[in-house]
């Protein structure tokens, strides 16, 4: 069983204080903290082998290139991608989805074509489609979120048509924690001749993921949400589909032959990696994967289930507090308190060192569906302990007291 107390010793930041209280970091859905191993790996890279990758005929460049490409293989293994060539490094989930919307979308969407998304998408998996749909005259359709915070898989069939070109949805909701049946939806999408993109920003860090088993065409996630540094993310795509796509950004490394007026392009994945990549970031992500592999993704999930169950039970015990989302979920709990705005909750908790997020969580349409303008959100990871849940609960009681003083 994963021991969060042992794990915490690997995260220097967790021993700091906030407002004179021990830091209780409950915002891993926004970004996770980083273990020493990740920081060390980046530092070691910069202090030993730093050089630009590819095209370098000298030792340092060879070392850097090997380290960078090895991380690609690590990522492929981690998500069970059938080959390295389908793993493209991006800045983050957002860029990965924009890559698909722009490179694949511009080439494949025509007037009247349909894209199916859901009401629970992060803005990252909504705005890129709004932009390309407007440009190409395509139409967006949305799967509803049911009252329990889940999707109705059967509704997919009613929305799918022979105009549907793509289904895009979040694997695990960053607000509700809902774990969507992406494999089942992929099957239905494919049966209708549509492609499927899965936003895995909140699944890959928290549970075993197998893109081959899901059989998705595209899969996106961010390094900074899985112990890695900021500035590095991944788009996985089926190589055949990537191969047929025009490029996304133009520049060095993504080309083959360049004339003044025209150029030919490199093979995948490099065709989609224009310019000097975030080499140090990729190496940090590689170290993060090593760390998670050593813990075991099954263990990560089991720990989060324990913590989340405890949090759900404790929060539901607080009178006037409403929890959103289903019972089975990832390690994220959004809630509202009668009479207290989420931002005030966050400020009051911050005084106790408890760091939670308040706001629309980049999911404004979902906020409207829930009939709120914002929620408070606590989220958990491998370094969170059961006693931190108790600190959270005590602090929430203080919120109630503050707001009860005046009626």
């Amino acid at each position, binding site marked *: 069983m994963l021991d969060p107390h042992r794990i915490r010793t690997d995260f220097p930041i967790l021993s700091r204080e906030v407002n004179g209280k021990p830091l209780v970091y409950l915002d891993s859905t926004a970004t996770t903290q980083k273990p020493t191993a990740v920081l060390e790996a980046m530092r070691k890279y910069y202090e030993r082998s730093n050089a630009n990758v590819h095209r370098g005929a000298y030792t340092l460049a060879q070392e850097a290139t090997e380290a960078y490409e090895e991380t690609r293989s690590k990522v492929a293994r981690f998500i069970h991608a059938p080959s390295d060539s389908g793993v493209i490094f991006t800045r983050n989930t957002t860029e990965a989805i924009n890559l698909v919307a722009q490179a694949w979308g511009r080439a494949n969407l025509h007037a009247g074509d349909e894209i199916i998304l859901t009401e629970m998408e992060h803005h990252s998996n909504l705005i890129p489609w709004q932009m390309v749909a407007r440009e190409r005259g395509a139409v967006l359709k949305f799967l509803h979120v049911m009252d329990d915070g889940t999707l109705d898989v059967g509704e997919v069939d009613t929305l799918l048509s022979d105009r549907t070109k793509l289904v895009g949805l979040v694997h695990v909701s960053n607000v509700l924690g809902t774990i969507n049946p992406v494999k089942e939806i992929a099957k239905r999408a494919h049966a209708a001749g549509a492609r499927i993109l899965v936003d895995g920003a909140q699944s890959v860090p928290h549970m075993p993921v197998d893109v081959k088993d899901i059989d998705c065409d595209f899969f996106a996630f961010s390094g900074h949400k899985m112990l890695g540094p900021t500035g590095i993310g991944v788009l996985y795509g089926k190589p055949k589909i990537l191969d047929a796509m025009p490029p996304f950004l133009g520049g060095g490394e993504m080309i083959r032959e360049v004339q003044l007026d025209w150029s030919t392009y490199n093979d995948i994945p490099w065709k989609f990696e224009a310019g000097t990549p975030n080499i140090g970031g990729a190496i940090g992500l590689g170290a993060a994967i090593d760390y998670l592999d050593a813990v075991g993704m099954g263990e990560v999930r089991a720990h989060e289930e324990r913590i989340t169950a405890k949090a759900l039970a404790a929060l539901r015990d607080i009178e006037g507090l409403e929890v959103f989302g289903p019972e089975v979920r990832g390690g994220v709990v959004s809630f509202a308190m009668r009479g207290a*705005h989420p931002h*005030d909750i966050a*400020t009051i908790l911050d*005084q106790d060192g408890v760091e939670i997020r308040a706001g629309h969580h980049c999911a404004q349409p979902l906020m409207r569906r829930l009939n709120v303008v*914002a929620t408070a959100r606590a989220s958990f990871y491998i370094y969170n302990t059961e006693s931190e849940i108790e600190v959270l609960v005590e602090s929430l009681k203080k919120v109630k007291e*503050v707001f009860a003083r*005046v009626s």
Partner: protein
Amino acid sequence: MSLDELYGEIILDHYKNPRNAGEMEDPSIKSQGFNQSCGDDITIFVRVDENGRISGIRFSGHGCAISQSSASMMTERMRGKTLEEAEEFISRMRKMLTGGGDFSELGEYDELSALRGVTKFPMRVKCASLAWTTLETGIEEFRGEGRANRT
């Protein structure tokens, strides 16, 4: 830094019992403001009389205790002021909220002193300022249109 300094009784009272909340028909000024960082959303409605005085003022929208109570207190304070007086007061408030002014200027018994605690919570300064800067923008636009109409 104590929570009571931020969430004092005056703040909570204005939050729970907001004055001048709601929309206004045919306002002279209607100005909407957002707080990007936390999603607060406010609309200020003002009626300006023939002497350039604020004869009516209301606010609608949603937000945290700080932004809502600040808006509520603002509406009370602004009524009866000329637009010039309002602008001058707003700029004083902004200075105080961002730490460039001294709340003691207001006098001990001024309700607005309740916002003093915000200066110790840098993340909340924008919340407290929202209503004021939104009104300010509205007044500027009102003047601009006025001038535009004149030429």
